[in-house]
């Protein structure tokens, strides 16, 4: 990628101090997103996907805190900004879409009031201009009869329509980056397809970069340009979407792909990764995946691998460097 990245995360480290010692929730996370690019972040529950998103938009729940590394938006550091300055960036430069569209809207205000308030907070426009813009945004996200629906309350919208409103809210100030945390998980498959094509289209038209957090590989395959696979607070593999899905290097990615029931082949048993993701207070020594890894060897139990080039993708696995030697 020749373009300068819009978002750059370098060696991000997030800790949760607790009575029984500090828990390391994110460890040495580095990635970047170019303008107009969609980066998918996948992994099982508890891998730290959502936490990465929260850290970027500056909404880590206390006592969680950024303990190291830096986050740059268009070359400017945003991880150490005072609350008020970060507030101005949030919404203006970074938009957020959360999983449950019902809880991200205020049930007591009309859709229009929430949109107009957001627009006027970030852009120097009059009430009428903001209203016109709100209607245009709702139309753009595919809400029919936007002029009438703008006067309605969230409970009068269905799940899919609410998620469109949330997307319209996130786009209100034309942000450069959207952090979408499981935007389609609460929706039916048929509606999911509509929302995904909407995000893709808007992204293309506005040149917005998207960080898409999800556990659904199908959604990733359709939407993203690149994918980062997370496990126990670290990125274990990152690369172009086709390569990560079809030619994964890390055994965890291989297992993750094999455990998805496919539509075009018949298998009696699904490939399964035995065991479960380790708890934060009991992350194994060496590679965190080693107790569940089918190809584990001695080095994995002692030394922690970092991301290294593994053909088309980058993977954090000793097999990449030691694999050939072991096979020989």
């Amino acid at each position, binding site marked *: 990628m020749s373009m300068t990245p819009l978002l750059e995360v370098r060696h991000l480290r997030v800790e949760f101090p607790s009575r029984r010692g500090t828990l390391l929730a994110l460890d040495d996370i580095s990635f970047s997103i170019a303008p107009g690019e969609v980066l998918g972040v996948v992994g099982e529950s508890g891998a730290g996907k959502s936490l990465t998103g929260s850290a970027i938009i500056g909404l880590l729940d206390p006592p969680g805190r950024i303990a190291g590394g830096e986050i740059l938006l268009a070359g400017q550091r945003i991880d150490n900004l005072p609350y008020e300055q970060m507030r101005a960036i949030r919404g203006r430069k970074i938009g957020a879409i959360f999983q449950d569209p019902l809880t991200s809207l205020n049930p007591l205000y009309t859709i229009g009031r929430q949109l107009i308030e957001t627009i006027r907070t970030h852009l120097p426009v009059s009430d009428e201009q903001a209203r016109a813009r709100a209607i245009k945004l709702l139309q753009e996200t595919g809400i029919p009869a936007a002029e009438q629906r703008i006067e309605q309350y969230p409970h009068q919208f269905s799940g899919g329509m609410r998620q469109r409103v949330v997307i319209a809210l996130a786009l209100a100030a034309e942000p450069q980056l959207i952090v979408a945390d499981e935007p389609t998980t609460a929706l039916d498959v048929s509606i999911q397809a509509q929302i995904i094509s909407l995000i893709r289209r808007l992204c293309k038209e506005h040149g917005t970069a998207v960080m898409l957090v999800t556990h659904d590989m199908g959604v990733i395959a359709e939407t993203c340009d690149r994918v980062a696979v997370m496990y126990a607070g670290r990125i274990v593999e990152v690369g172009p979407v086709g390569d990560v899905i079809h030619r994964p290097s890390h055994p965890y990615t291989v297992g993750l792909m094999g455990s*998805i029931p496919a539509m075009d082949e018949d298998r009696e048993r699904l490939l399964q990764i035995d065991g479960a993701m380790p708890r934060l207070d009991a992350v194994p020594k060496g590679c965190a995946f080693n107790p569940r890894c089918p190809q584990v060897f001695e080095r994995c139990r002692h030394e922690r691998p970092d991301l290294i080039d593994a053909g088309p993708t980058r993977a954090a696995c000793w097999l990449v460097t030691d694999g050939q030697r072991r096979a020989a």
Partner: protein
Amino acid sequence: MSNPLVEVKDLAKTFDVSAPWLNRVVERKPRQFVHAVDGVSFAIQRGKTLALVGESGCGKSTVARLLVGLYSPTRGSVQFDGKDTHGSTDKAQLRIMRRRMQMIFQDPYASLNPRWKVRDIVGEPLTEHGLVTDADELRNRVAELLLSVGLAAADVEKFPHQFSGGQRQRISIARALATQPEFLVCDEPTSALDVSVQAQVLNIMKDLQRQRGLTYLFISHNLAVVRHVSDQVGVMYLGRLVELADKAELFGQPRHPYTRMLLDAIPDIHMSGRARTPVQGEVPNPLSPPSGCAFHPRCPHANARCSQERPAFKAIKGITVACHAVEEGRI
């Protein structure tokens, strides 16, 4: 073909969602009913899996609850091994019937009592149905059950919060298996789980079916999972079955426009970059379902007949489908 284990005929369930009496009188509101399930018929052969799919609110879970007797039907009948499950008033017989069918629920975080140890959770059906005589036998049986779903016998002393989602769902399965049922109703058993854990649970369910000859009714909105586990698939839309066919038929050659639409909507990891055709529109409000075929406002093949006349659910060339267009040979 032998007698099916479960046979459902014209099953219907209507819920009264009217406003309170005073509001109805003062504000002149009419009574309102939701036809959650409206004339569903199917049969499941012994040792087979029937899957029901559909979007939220189509009545899948209501069918599941009607089958195990958590709701009583407004109309129609459920036959289990040749006996009517709702008509009979013989309590002893109902009790035996309930022992033979069990249910696994969607959310393993909500379906296990957080104050009970695993021993009590899995052991309750055994003592409740009088299947064990003394404490030693109970302990052995619980340990056996836990081992059969891949947990350790020592886990009996733990509470549900000490387990992950996948392990909890295994506890639910162990509890459901305690009474040695023949028929298991699984209501979205894996939709609250991560994919890798989902694979573990699906594999266990398949192994248990093979070992014990279990019959499943499997409810899911995930078509890829359905394709993996089922022998027969029924597609539901607004309380009615619109298509019922063998797995290979349904996925190979879907007939009903709604089934086609659902299949098109699945994100497929092997076709990255493919522009999928998003489904148009949304499920209508079940309080005022469209006239005629309930699917006609979203259907690309709808004509005047579809908006007036409700299509009958009948067998056409080996599959059962409710669609005028298929019947007339238009698609």
